C-alpha cells in the first residue's frame, strides 16, 4: 500500500486514493476538427512508460481533489505530487527516465 502525498492533506495511504491514469492529456478544444487518427489517439493512446510517469490521482476518500504525481513505474516511488493545472515540476526527469 503506497503512501501518497496529497498536495492538500499530506501523506496518506493509497486506500484513500483513486488512480486517474496519464496526466496532462488535454481534451482537444474542438474535437470536430480532429482527424479520426488524432481523436483515437486522444481517447486511447497512453504513455505507459517504464520509469517516471506523470499521472493523475484523486484523493477520493479524503479531500476529494484531483492532483498530479510523478511516480517511477519501476520502483513505485514518487518523485513529486503537484496540484492539477500546474505544470510538471521543473528539473524532474522526462517520462520513462528513472527517478533514482
Amino acid at each position, binding site marked *: 500500500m503506497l503512501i501518497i502525498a496529497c498536495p492538500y492533506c*499530506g501523506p496518506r495511504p493509497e486506500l484513500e486514493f483513486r488512480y486517474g491514469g496519464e496526466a496532462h492529456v488535454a481534451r482537444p478544444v474542438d474535437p470536430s476538427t480532429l482527424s479520426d487518427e488524432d481523436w483515437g489517439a486522444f481517447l486511447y493512446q497512453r504513455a505507459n512508460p517504464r520509469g517516471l510517469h506523470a499521472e493523475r490521482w484523486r484523493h477520493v476518500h479524503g479531500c476529494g481533489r484531483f492532483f498530479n504525481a510523478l511516480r517511477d513505474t519501476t520502483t513505485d516511488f514518487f518523485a513529486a505530487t503537484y496540484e492539477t493545472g500546474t505544470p510538471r515540476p521543473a528539473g524532474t526527469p522526462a517520462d520513462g527516465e528513472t527517478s533514482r
Partner: protein
Amino acid sequence: MADLSTMRTPAIEALVTASPASHLAALTALPPRTRFSFRGRPAAVTAFGTVLGFDLPQVACRFAEDGARRALWLGPDEWLVTLPDREATAFAGAAATALAGLPSSLVDVSQRSLALAVSGPMAARIINAGCPLDLSPDAFPVGMCTRTLLGKAEIVLSRTDEARFEIDVWRSFADYVWRLLEEARREFV
C-alpha cells in the same frame, strides 16, 4: 409518501441496544443533528462564517467549533457543518441570504449519515482495526478531522479529545461500521 421522520431513527438501533459496555473502548451512537455540506470560494466562505458565528477553518483537516456548532474542513473548498436540529431552519435561511450572489453550494445532508463516538484508552486502536491512518496524538491531534476509510466504508473521522473520536458514516454503511468496531472491541469488553 414515506414519513421522513422515520428516517431519523438510527439504522443501528438494535446493534446499539445489544452493545456491551467497556471503559477501555466505549462505542456509542450520538443523537441526531443537522449537517450542512458547504462549498464555496473565499468570498462565500467569509460570508458563511458571519452566519455561522465563527470563521471556517482554513487549515487542512482541522475543525473549528463554537458551542454546539462545528465546522469540519473536508477539502480546500468543502466543509461539513453540524449544528442542533432546532437551529437548522433559521440557520439555512440566514445563510441563503448571506450567500446570495456568491458562487457557493449549501446542502442539507442531515439524513445522509449518522454519528458514532468511540472513546476510552483503546479508542484509537479500535478504529485502527479498519482505518489505515496513524492515529497517535502527534499524527492525528485533537481538533483534527478528515474523510477516510473504515474497512470498506467511507467515514468522516474527528478527534474531539485525546481518547475520543467521532465518526460520521453514511446510514447504509452504519451497521457495517458498527459491527466492524464491535468485532475489534470484543477483546476489550
